[in-house]
Structure formats: C-alpha cells, structure tokens
C-alpha cells in the first residue's frame, strides 16, 4: 500500500471528487428545504429551487412594472460599471506609481511611505468620509473601490518591478537605453501580465467594497438588491443573486487569465 501522500486519483476520480461536495450541498439543501416546506408551505428561509428560479426569472426576464427595466440586467450593468471604473483607475494608478517607485530611487523615497500608509487604512472606515466629501452618488462608491484596491495593487506592482533582475537593467543601460526607454520598453512590457495578475488578485477585495457601498447607499446594483430584499427575508432572490455574483467573479477571472495566456506567451516561463 502506497503512502497516502503518493496516492494520486485518476482524472475521472479527480473530477468526481471535485464535484462531490457541491452535490452533497445541493442534496442537503433540497431535502432540508423539502422538510421545512412540508411543515410550513410559506417558509422563507430555505425556498425550493423552483421558487428561486421563478423569482429569478421574474427579475431577469420581466420588465419591472414601476420602471420598465429588467432588474437583473440593470443591477448587473450598474455594478459591473462601478467595478470596471474602480479597477481600471486603480490599475492605471498602480502601473504608473508602482513602476516609478520601483525603478526611480527619488520616487521611492517620496511616495512609498505614503502608499504604505494608505494600504494600512481599513478602507471601510473611509466610507463616511467619502459620503461626506463626494455625496451619496456614484463617485464615492468608485472612490471606495479605488482606495481599497489601488494601494494593494501598487505595492504588488512595486514588488514585481523589484523582482526584475538588476543584471537586466544594467544590461540595457549598456545597450544605450535612457530612463524613459527602460521604463517603456523594458519594465512596462514585463509588468503588464503581472498587472493582470494583480487585478485578478484584488478583484475579490474590489467586490467586497462594491457590495458594501451599494448596500449602504444606492438605488440599483447587485449589492443594493440583496440588501433591499433582505427586509422581506427573500432568500429566493438572495441565493440566486449570490450565485450570479460568484459566477460573474469567476467569469472575469477566467477572461483575464485567458487574456494573459494569449497576449504574453512568454510570461511565467523565464
């Protein structure tokens, strides 16, 4: 008998084992839900799957009577828009500042303590300040994402720039490169795939800030919706929404990963 650490499952077993916990959760949920519903058909805590699909179907495919909008689509668009703007601004900030403090010693001295300070502030504590300064509109939600994500991303990019071997930087100087050329032709192209990875890493954090900001002050968005229907204990909406958000997060991560693979074939192989 081989040691446990040397027993490797085959491909099919691997797949089966991976799916097993999900299957168990679904079975447990369905049976628990059935038990509760036979006791009380109006039970809200564990709605049946049909009920969830029905409620979700209404939100997804029927126009809202009051506004004439498809609620799920509308919520998704608003949330993704906030997320995209927040992440894009953070990424551009991280790229510019991270590279500058990574390669120019005077910039390191000037900016790196500040970035470090900001990355330590618990971002949610800044939310009241943002609401006071920027009001309850879109800006404060996006700024919250930026404040939460940009410092982490910047530190990440800074680290990755520092990891570029000094031999390489010296070598390109002997090939006649000036500082600007080193940044644009040597550092940035090598950092771009790492920036994509940094985005993937911080997306989870960005979602937290997005949902939180939407929960507190908003009139549309995925986070707003689940916190709104919470008042009616509408688990039949909340559960599918959470799954939908998870799916979106997975999809974005998947796209970014494919993006890296296609665009930077050399990445991760040096």
């Amino acid at each position, binding site marked *: 008998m081989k040691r446990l650490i040397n027993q490797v499952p085959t491909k099919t077993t691997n797949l089966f084992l991976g799916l097993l916990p999900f299957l168990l959760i679904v079975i447990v949920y369905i049976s628990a839900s059935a038990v509760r519903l036979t006791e009380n058909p109006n039970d809200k805590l564990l709605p049946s799957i049909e009920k969830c699909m029905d409620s979700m179907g209404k939100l997804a495919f029927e126009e809202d009577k009051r506004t004439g909008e498809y609620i799920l689509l509308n919520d998704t668009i608003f949330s993704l828009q906030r997320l995209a703007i927040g992440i894009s601004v953070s990424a551009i900030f991280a790229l510019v500042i991270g590279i500058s403090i990574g390669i120019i010693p005077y910039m390191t001295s000037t900016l790196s303590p500040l970035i470090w300070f900001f990355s330590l502030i618990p971002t949610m504590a800044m939310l009241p300040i943002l609401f006071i300064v920027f009001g309850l509109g879109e800006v404060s939600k996006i700024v919250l994402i930026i404040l939460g994500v940009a410092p982490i991303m910047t530190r990440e990019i800074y680290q990755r720039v520092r990891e570029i*071997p000094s*031999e*390489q930087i*010296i*070598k*390109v*100087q*002997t*090939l*006649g*490169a*000036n500082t*600007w*050329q080193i940044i*644009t*032709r*040597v550092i940035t*192209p*090598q950092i771009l795939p790492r920036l994509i990875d940094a985005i993937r890493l911080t997306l989870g954090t960005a979602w937290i800030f997005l949902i939180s900001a939407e929960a507190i002050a908003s009139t549309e968005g995925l986070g707003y919706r689940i916190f709104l229907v919470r008042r009616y204990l509408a688990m039949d909406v909340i559960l599918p929404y959470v799954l939908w958000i998870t799916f979106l997060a997975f999809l974005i991560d998947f796209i970014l990963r494919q993006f890296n693979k296609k665009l*930077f*074939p*050399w*990445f991760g*192989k*040096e």
Partner: protein
Amino acid sequence: MSLVKAKNIWKIYGNDVILENLNFSMNDGEFCALVGPSGCGKTTFLKMLLGIDEPTRGKLLFEGKEYPKEPSDERGIVFQRYSTLSHLNVIDNVIIGLEFEKSKFFGKLFGKEKKEAYEKANEILKAVGLEDSKNKYPHELSGGMKQRLSIAQSLVKKPKLLLLDEPFGALDPGISLDMHELLLEIHSKLNFGVVMVTHDISEAFKLGTRVLVFDKIKTDKDFPNRYGSTIVNDIDASKKKERKNEK
C-alpha cells in the same frame, strides 16, 4: 593611449579592504582574463569597469578621461544569467540596442529603419549561430544560446570594451567549448578590448591574450579582510595562442 588605466586603486567597505593598490592598463584589442580565488575582488573590479561601482581611492581612466559613473553603450556586458529580455524574441532582443539609439522617445523603430536594423541583426545572429532561432523567445533557448544572444545584443552596439562576468560558468563543458570558439572568432575579427572574469584557469589561458591573477599579497589570519587583493601576476598569453594557430 590606453583604453583603461587604473592607478593605485583601493576599494574599502567599512573595515574590509577588498582591493589594495591595484595598477592596471589595457589597450584596444587586448583580451584580459581575470582569475583568482573567490572573494578576491575580481568582480568588484569588473563592476568598476562597468561603471556601477567606484574606487574608494586612486584613479580610474577610460580612454584617458575620467571614468564614466554609470553604464553606457561604450562598454558592453555579458553576465552569467539574466542578460536577455524575456518579453522579446531573439531578433528583437538584438535590435533593441539600435532602437534605443535611434528612437529616443518611443525606443522603437518602424518601416525602413526597422528593416535596416533587422538586416544588421541578422548578420550578427549569423555570426553567433542563432539565425535559425531568431523568432524564438529566450525561454525557448538553451543556456548556451541565451549567452550567444547576450553577446549578440552587445555586439550590435560595437562596444569599445566588452565585459564578461563568468559568462560560461553555468554552461555544460561541451557547450563552453563551442562558446570559446565563438568568442575567439569574434574577438579576432573585431578589435575591441575584452575583460573576462572566470574561475576556470585553462579557459583564461585559452581565451586571454593576458591573464591577470588577483590575490592578496599579505594575509592576516585573525582578520582576513585587513588586506585587499591586487594583481599579483600579469601573464602574457598571446604568444601561446599564435603558436596554437600556426599548428
């Protein structure tokens, strides 16, 4: 006028003396191989020649003028590793030196200029034996090919002085021999100065026209860094090679 001249150079870090009263002079076309025990300051001296380190005391001159304080395209370098750009393929790794020179803002050439740069790079790649791999990325190359590429990168800049920091230290013995042939051939064609740091004494004598031995003259058992190294032996190895060529 000598290419590099060092007069009474000292390098001291705190209480540690690394180099002590070192004198050195070399001309165009000379191939100086630096040998000596590890930690004897060969690499420190090479760093000074590269421009990323300065002597604590003494005078270092490049073509009779004050030594440049940072690396420039007059002095090329091949390190043991990490000299190539992993995000560019072989030929783009070579033309980048030309692009830096001709396109100050974009660092990139287009159209006719790019075509000329590629032609130049093709010649050099042929010389170093990489013409069949010009579209590969560095991660697809073997260790020896990477070093060939690194040499090609420097050659395109026509440096006056080529510095080699144990360039073949990480290669298999058979590959090293190929690299020796390549280096000897390039050096005999182009008349630039070479300074190579190596651990391998036979390599030093095979390639160098001069072999410079670094070591300490005085030693102190209790405090090994009280005295620094200097060049204890300057051996003319050029005649030996000519004899070999005659055979």
